[in-house]
């Protein structure tokens, strides 16, 4: 226990003197939140023009029209202005920029529930208007899934409570903050492999090997300290988000903590995995970048994964940050309970187990 305390205190003393580590753990995420939060502050009240092309399902079209019109922003402004019309005409307007999106409702949608079948409405939008899509597509899909649920329960969707949709009104900062949180867990976790490599390279681990200090104590002391740094950073990010931008937190706080811990475990393991496979700090630095940067960009930190080109999708689907971001966002924005995100949890658990298994197999102490 004394030795455990010694390792913990030594990690703390070194950490508070390591400006780079402090910056990436605390200042970096806060700067991101403030910059993006202020830059896109007014986007929450932006409205969208959506064309509705009824290809033979008038009932569903009506439901969607009512659903979209019921989304009300601050100041009683409707988020969507709907425009019915012919698909080709509407798409031409979309290309000219007169519309933000066009929804094609195919024939046969009205009888889907009765037939027990399912089908998708087709949404057309300008993928180059990336920032708009951050709000437009998630908001559209929320409305449509709300209608979907109503239909599935055989309840007339006309009775839908507009307030419930309004409370899920998504501003960019609400979308962004869970992403920044996930990204920071990744940065702190993966970079944690670097001091391990440095200590091994400088023969410090070997020097400690000549003392009675157990290696397990060394690892546990290190791990506990890093988990505390991660949790402190996460708490700071959420606090700043809530205080400065009143960021949404619809879900359960315990679930959020659970996902933060699971995500941290994955990225800390990934850091150890790098320490197991890479010998020198010089070569580890680029490896850390190669791991971090694609995830930061592709895994839905700043842009919705849905707005990524289809050919990268297989890559996006194996990156752990994709699932951390998705889980954090579902809890904070939609209030999804943990038992409804088993895919996220299973993929993350698999990543943690795989990383730890490979680390144990290949890690060398000197």
């Amino acid at each position, binding site marked *: 226990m004394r030795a455990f305390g010694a390792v913990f205190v*030594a990690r703390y003393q070194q950490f508070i*003197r390591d400006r780079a580590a402090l910056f990436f753990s605390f200042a970096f995420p806060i700067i991101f939140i403030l910059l993006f939060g202020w830059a896109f502050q007014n986007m929450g009240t932006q409205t969208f023009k959506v064309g509705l092309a009824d290809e033979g399902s008038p009932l569903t079209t009506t439901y969607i029209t009512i659903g979209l019109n019921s989304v009300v922003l601050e100041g009683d402004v409707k988020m969507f202005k709907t425009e019915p019309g012919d698909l080709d005409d509407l798409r031409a307007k979309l290309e000219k920029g007169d519309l933000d999106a066009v929804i094609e409702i195919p024939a046969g949608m009205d009888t889907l529930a009765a037939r027990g079948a399912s089908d998708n409405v087709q949404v057309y939008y300008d993928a180059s208007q990336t920032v708009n899509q951050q709000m437009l597509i998630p908001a559209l899909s929320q409305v449509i899934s709300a209608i979907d649920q109503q239909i599935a329960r055989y309840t007339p969707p006309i009775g839908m409570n507009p307030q419930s949709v309004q409370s899920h009104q998504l501003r960019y900062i609400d979308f962004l903050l869970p992403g920044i949180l996930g990204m920071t867990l990744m940065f702190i976790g993966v970079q944690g492999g670097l001091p391990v490599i440095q200590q091994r390279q400088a*023969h410090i681990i070997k*020097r400690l090997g000549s003392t*009675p200090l157990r290696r397990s104590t060394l690892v546990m002391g290190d791990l506990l300290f890093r988990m505390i740094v991660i949790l402190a950073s996460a708490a700071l990010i959420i606090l700043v988000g809530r205080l400065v931008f009143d960021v949404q937190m619809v879900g359960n706080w315990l679930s959020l903590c659970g996902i933060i811990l699971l995500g941290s475990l994955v990225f800390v393991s990934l850091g150890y995995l790098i320490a197991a496979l890479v010998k020198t700090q010089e070569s580890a630095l680029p490896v850390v970048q190669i791991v971090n940067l694609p995830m930061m960009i592709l895994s839905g930190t700043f842009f919705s994964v849905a707005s990524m080109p289809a050919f990268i999708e297989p890559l996006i689907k194996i990156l752990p940050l994709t699932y951390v971001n998705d889980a954090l966002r579902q809890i904070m924005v939609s209030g999804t309970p943990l038992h409804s995100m088993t895919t996220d949890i299973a993929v993350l658990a698999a990543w943690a187990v795989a990383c730890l298994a490979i680390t144990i197999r290949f890690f060398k102490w000197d």
Partner: protein
Amino acid sequence: MGVSASKVIEVTNLAKSYGTIKAVDGISFEVAQGEVFGMLGPNGAGKTTTIEIVEGLRTADGGSATVLGMDVSKHTRAVKERIGVQSQSPALFPGLKVREMIKFFRRLYKKSVPTSHIIELASLQESQNVLFRNLSGGQQQRLSVALAFVSDPDIIFLDEPTTGLDPQARRAMWEVIETFQRAGKTVVLTTHYMEEAQRLCDRIAIMDYGKIIALDSPQRLIESNIKESAIQFKMNEYPGDQVITGLPDVSKVIREGDDIIVYTNNIPSAISGLLGMASQRSAELSELSVRQATLEDVFLKMTGKRIRD
């Protein structure tokens, strides 16, 4: 040291290979309590590997190492509680202050000496709140050695403890080691400095290619290996080994870079032979000196290498 003193280290047929290289090739030796035991050898001779096995840092492929009556491979942690180790490079946390580093190491052991005592041993009273990375090389080295004493150990292992120290600090370190020895404790030491080995060590093991090729007190190592005196000089044009050994009273010649070392039992006769040979060939002798054989000569003779190479 008398043979009657109790043995604190017993190494029997110790072997360790890395691939096809036999780093330690079946060596045996004993160290008595209160002894300063030196290990000399060229780099790669197997000294560090041997010491690291005895410290419990590495496992041997064969043979056994017993420290303070305990088999190191079985009672590794119990052994580590009672030994102090200084490693070749001052491998310590760059981001800790001197005082914090000592406190860290104290917490790793069941018993430890006061922090101030270690600061004094390292002569770092003025720098106790300086970060390790901001210490000079010599200060880092001194802290690294002083930390070997942190657990009040029965045996300390010092791997080149005075490398990188100035002569004054080196002498201070010798006094620390001698004080430790006077308290009845045991020291195992590797060094590149012959003067240091000759002054500190009760016995010396010379290692080469994983084997101990000689083990005795410094004085007896010299007496039994080299009975001659050494004449050392430079020559602008080397005539070849055969010419020099052909001179009267020259028993052996060794070339060390520019230096030529001639061993002889008859100094005047050998010198006059050398001078005659030089004038005959119109060559010039310079920097000529005559000295008693030293440990360095023993080492050179046995390994064919200079100790610092």
